[in-house]
């Protein structure tokens, strides 16, 4: 549970979506330390959301727009959640069916 971290990473992504940014510039714009920004960038990089490049002595970061990986990951995650929910609903329906069948076989309810 790292809510602040999540928000920070999201903010970083939003900043990077406007174009490549150096880590120092990001740190200046955000209420977190430079090492913390680097840590967040590493997580984003490992997740394939951000790519790194070197310009002179600076490292620049930008959103990885190649390969549509982000879009694919997004929909994959989305449908996973939706179908998990669907399975839960279906299981509840199946339990309901069983209960109704049980009641039908025994017209007098217990209790």
């Amino acid at each position, binding site marked *: 549970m*790292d809510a602040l*971290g*999540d*928000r920070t*990473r*999201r903010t970083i*992504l*939003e900043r990077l*979506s*406007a174009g490549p940014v150096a880590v120092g510039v990001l740190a200046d714009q955000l209420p977190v330390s430079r090492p913390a920004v680097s840590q967040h960038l590493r*997580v*984003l990089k*490992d*997740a394939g*959301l951000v790519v790194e490049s070197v310009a002179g002595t600076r490292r620049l970061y930008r*959103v990885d*727009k*190649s*390969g*549509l990986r*982000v*879009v*694919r*990951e*997004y*929909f*994959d*995650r*989305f*449908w*996973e*959640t*939706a*179908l*998990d*929910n*669907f*399975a*839960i*609903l*279906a*299981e509840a*329906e*199946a339990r309901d*069916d069983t209960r109704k069948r049980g009641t039908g076989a025994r017209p007098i309810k217990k209790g």
Partner: protein
Amino acid sequence: MDTQSGSAVEVFRSVSVPLAQARAFELFTTRMTEFWPKEHSIGESELAEVVLEPRSGGRWFERGVDGSECQWGRVAAWDPPRKVVLLWQIGADWQFDPEFETEVEVTFSQEGPDRSRLDLRHCNLQRYGANTEQMRAIFDDPAGWTGSLAAFVDLAAAQTTPGH
């Protein structure tokens, strides 16, 4: 614009449920509201209902709590209890775009007397990559996107942080 624009990008998901094929089809198409991730909404007001008009050519839309409707796409093929194909026509700017189409193909197959499998394929996602401006737009706006992006980043973080 790049070498990948010509190749198809899709996602595939499958789930097995303890219902007969026809029941599973009915549940999926008539009670979408109950399993739809609520934050995935493009309307101005909070999502109240997801509606799928049960016929080929029917509309697929959300209704907000204030009664307003916001179209998501159309039914491209209606073939109960086996298959439904939905056109997801929400562009990268998170607006309904009648000119934009990605296909969500959902098939149901009987696996036993009371069991069936749902296979879902969301095709032609490469159309989101027509230009980088569109990609930027995905990040820029919608509440639905930012919420799920945060969840995704969260998950990515969990996978990449040792010991958690």
